[in-house]
C-alpha cells in the first residue's frame, strides 16, 4: 500500500442543521415541589426551599423543598409503617401489579419525562428520549416480572425482604437511577425512602406523581429532596435497614464509615476511570465510534465512562487522526435540540471541576486537542476534549474528571495494557476492541472491572448486573444480582 503520511490530509466539516428544538409545552412543571411522604406532597418541616436550575440557560425551573432531620424521620416512619402493615404482607403477585403499572405510566409519559430530564440535567434530548426514559421503564418491567418468582430466582433460600431501604441517587441519570433503585426494592417487598440529587430532583418528583396516580399504598415509596445533610440524615437514621448509594467515592467512604458497626446492609456504586483498549487488529472506524460514545455520552457524566484510552502503538496515529476529525462533527449546544450530541454540563460546580482538570492537564505537559465548534454563550458548556502526551502518573489519568475529557496513551503488548488498565484505584468498567476472539477472552478475564464491553461500550440492560471492584464500590444492581441485594 501507499506509504503512510500521517496527519497530512485533514477533513473539513461545516455542519449546518436548522435548529430542531423539542417543545417544552408538553412538560408540566410546577413552580414549587414539596416532599413526597406517605403518599402525599407535604410541606417541609424545615420550611426551607432551594432552586433547581436549567444548566443550559442558567434559568430557574422550580423551587424544591429541603428535607431536614424531622422530615427524614417522617419519611422513614411512613416507610416503616407501610412495610409492617401493608407491603410485606401483600401477596407478591399483587406487588407486581403496582410495579407493572408504574412501568406503563412511565412509558405513557415518556416524552414529558424526557423533556424534563433534559431541562433539569442538561443531557441531550436524544439521549433522554432514546436511552434514559425507556431504560427506566424497562427496569420496572423487568423487576415486576420477578416479584412473584423470587423462589425460583433464589432456590433453597428463604425469601425475606430487608425492610426500609434508604436510597441516594446521583445527578447524571436521575430517573434511570431512581428506577434502578426503586424497582428491585419494591419487587422484593421492601419500602423506600429515596433522595434524588439536589441539582436534578425534577424527574424523581414527577415519578412521585406517577406513583401517587398508580395508587401504590401510601408510604411504600417516599421521595424527599435536599442536599448532603438530607442524605446524611437518611444514612444515619437508625430505622433504616439498607443503604443503596450511587455517587462519588468520597461520599461512599463517608457512608461506609457512618454505617460501620450498625446492621445496615449497603450497596455502593461509586466512581470510575475506565480503560478503553484498541488493538491494532480492531475495526478502527467502529472502535473510534465506541470511544466517542464511551466518553462523550451524557457529557462524560458517566461513572463507567471510557475516560482512559489505550491505543496499540502501530495504529496510534490513525486512531488519533480519526478521533480528531470525529470530534469536529459533534454538535455541542441546546440540549433540547434533537441535533445536539453533547449537552450542558450539569452544574456550575461540575463545570469548575472540569475546567480545573483541563488546567491541570496542560500544566502536567499534556497536549490538549479540542474541537473548534461554537458553544452557547450562556449556560455551562465544554467542548469535547482529548489529551495526548499523558502518563499513568498524570492526575488527569488517575482521577475521575466526570466530564467530556479523554486521555490517550499507547501500549505495545497485551500484558502491558492489562497492567496499565488495572493500575487504578477504580474498577467499574472497561472496553476492549479487537477482531480476535481469544484476545477478548484473555482481556476480559484479567480486567479488574465490573463490566467489560467487547467491541462496544456503554450498553445497558435491566437483565445485566452492574457494579464495581475496588474503590468503584460493591454490590450489584440490575439482573438477578440486583434482587439479591434487597433480600436477607
Amino acid at each position, binding site marked *: 500500500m501507499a506509504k503512510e503520511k500521517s496527519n*497530512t*490530509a485533514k*477533513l473539513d466539516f*461545516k455542519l449546518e442543521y*436548522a435548529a430542531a428544538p423539542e417543545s417544552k409545552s408538553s412538560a408540566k412543571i410546577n413552580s414549587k415541589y414539596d416532599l413526597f411522604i406517605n403518599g402525599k406532597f407535604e410541606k417541609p418541616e424545615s420550611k426551607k426551599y432551594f432552586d433547581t436550575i436549567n444548566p443550559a440557560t442558567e434559568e430557574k425551573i422550580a423551587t424544591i423543598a429541603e428535607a431536614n432531620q424531622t422530615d427524614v424521620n417522617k419519611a422513614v416512619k411512613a416507610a416503616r409503617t407501610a412495610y409492617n402493615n401493608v407491603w410485606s404482607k401483600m401477596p407478591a403477585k399483587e406487588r407486581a401489579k403496582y410495579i407493572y403499572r408504574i412501568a406503563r405510566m412511565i412509558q405513557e409519559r415518556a416524552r414529558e419525562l424526557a423533556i424534563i430530564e433534559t431541562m433539569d440535567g442538561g443531557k441531550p434530548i436524544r439521549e433522554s428520549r432514546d436511552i434514559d426514559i425507556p431504560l427506566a421503564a424497562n427496569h420496572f418491567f423487568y423487576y415486576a416480572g420477578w416479584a412473584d418468582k423470587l423462589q425460583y430466582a433464589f432456590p433453597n433460600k428463604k425469601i425475606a425482604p430487608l425492610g426500609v431501604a434508604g436510597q441516594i441517587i446521583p445527578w447524571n441519570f436521575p430517573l434511570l437511577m431512581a428506577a434502578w433503585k426503586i424497582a428491585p426494592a419494591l419487587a422484593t417487598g421492601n419500602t423506600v425512602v429515596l433522595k434524588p440529587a439536589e441539582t436534578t430532583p425534577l424527574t424523581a418528583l414527577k415519578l412521585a406523581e406517577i406513583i401517587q396516580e398508580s395508587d401504590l399504598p401510601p408510604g411504600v415509596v417516599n421521595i424527599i429532596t435536599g442536599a448532603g445533610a438530607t442524605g446524611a440524615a437518611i444514612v444515619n437514621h437508625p430505622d433504616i435497614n439498607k443503604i443503596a448509594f450511587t455517587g462519588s467515592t468520597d461520599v461512599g467512604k463517608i457512608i461506609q464509615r457512618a454505617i460501620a458497626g450498625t446492621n445496615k446492609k449497603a450497596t455502593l456504586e461509586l466512581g470510575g476511570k475506565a480503560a478503553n483498549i484498541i488493538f491494532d487488529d480492531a475495526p478502527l472506524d467502529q*472502535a473510534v465510534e465506541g470511544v466517542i460514545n464511551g466518553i462523550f455520552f451524557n457529557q462524560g457524566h458517566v461513572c463507567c465512562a471510557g475516560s482512559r484510552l489505550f491505543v496499540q502503538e502501530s495504529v496510534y496515529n490513525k486512531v488519533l487522526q480519526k478521533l480528531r476529525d470525529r470530534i469536529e462533527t459533534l454538535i455541542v449546544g441546546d440540549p433540547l435540540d434533537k441535533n445536539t450530541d453533547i449537552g450542558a454540563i450539569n452544574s456550575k460546580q461540575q463545570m469548575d471541576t472540569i475546567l480545573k482538570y483541563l488546567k491541570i492537564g496542560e500544566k502536567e505537559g499534556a497536549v490538549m486537542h479540542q474541537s473548534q465548534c461554537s458553544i452557547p454563550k450562556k449556560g455551562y458548556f465544554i467542548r469535547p476534549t482529548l489529551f495526548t502526551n499523558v502518563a499513568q502518573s498524570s492526575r488527569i489519568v488517575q482521577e475521575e474528571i466526570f466530564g467530556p475529557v479523554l486521555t490517550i496513551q499507547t501500549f505495545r503488548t497485551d500484558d502491558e495494557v492489562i497492567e496499565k488498565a488495572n493500575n487504578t484505584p477504580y474498577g467499574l468498567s472497561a472496553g476492549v476492541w479487537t477482531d480476535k476472539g481469544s484476545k477478548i477472552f484473555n482481556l476480559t478475564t484479567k480486567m479488574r472491572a465490573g463490566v467489560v464491553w467487547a467491541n462496544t461500550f456503554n450498553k445497558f440492560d435491566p437483565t445485566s448486573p452492574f457494579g464495581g471492584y475496588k474503590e468503584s464500590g460493591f454490590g450489584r444492581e440490575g439482573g438477578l444480582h440486583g434482587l439479591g441485594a434487597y433480600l436477607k
Partner: protein
Amino acid sequence: MIMAVTQTNFTIPDFSISPKIDQIGVEERAKRFTARSIKTTSKLSGLKLVLNMIDLTTLEGKDTNGKVKQLCYKAQHLHNNYPDLPTVAAVCVYPSMVKVAKNALGNSGVKVAAVATAFPSGQAPKEVKITDTKFAVDNGADEIDMVISRGKFLQGEYNFVFDEIATIKEACGNARLKVILETGELVTYDNVRKASDIAMYAGADFIKTSTGKIQPAATMPVTLVMLEAIRDFYYKTGKMIAMKPAGGISKSKAALHYLVMLQETLGSAWMSNHWFRFGASSLANDVLMQLEKERTGVYQSANYFSID
C-alpha cells in the same frame, strides 16, 4: 518440507488484509445519521443539492432512442415552476445509447455516463470489456460505470480484479471511471471494504455500490463502509475519491440522510456532484414533490410530475 511454488501468488498490495468492519458498530453508526433533523433552509438547500447529484438512469433492455431523448430533456428541465433549478449531474445509459444522449444533452453541462464491461453481470472476456468501454468513450461518454468480476473476487483472486479495473481505467482515457462493487453479491461488510480498497488503488475515480439489478442495492451501512474506505485512502494519499450509492434510494428523506452521512464522514469538500452521486430513477420526482410542498405548503398529486 514445503511444496515448490508453481504459481506465484505473491502480490503487492495484498488486499487480503484490508481493515475489518464490525457489523453491529457500522449499522449503529449509520442509523445515527437518520436522527439528524433537517428542516427549513437546510432542507431546501439539501434537496437542491440532491437533485444536482442525481445520475438519472435508464438501464433496460427495452430502452429506445426516444426514451433516452425524453430522459435527457427531463434531466435539463426538471420542473416548469423552477426555471433556475439545477440540472441533474448525469444521464446514465447503455453504451448503445451514448450518442443519442450526447446529442440530446448538447452543451447543457449534464454528463453522459455509460455502463460498460458487460453490465450488469460482468461475465465477459477482458477484450470484450475493453471494446465495450472504448465504444462508449468514443461515442462521447464522460463517465464509465464498470462492474467488477464478483466471481473472481469471491474466489480470492483480488489481483485479477485489480488488474481488470486498471485495464478499464486505461481504456477510459479522460472519462471518469466508476467502479460498481455490486455489494449485494459481496454480502459482508468486510468484503465491501476489501473491494473498495482494490478499486481505489487500481485507479477508480468513483466507487459505486450497485447495478440496481441485484437486491439489496445501496444501503446506508454499506455506503458508510465505502465512505470510510475513501476516508482512509484520503488520509494515506491525500487523493479524493468520489462515491455513488445506486439503487433503492427513491425518497428525498433517505437522500438527505445520505447527505448527512457524507458530510459527517468526509466533510464539506465532498458535498458536490463531482464527488458524490445518487444513482436513481424515481428519486428526482420525489425531491421535486418535496420542493413543491415547501413552496406551496401542500403535497401535490404525482400526476403533476412528469414521468420520463
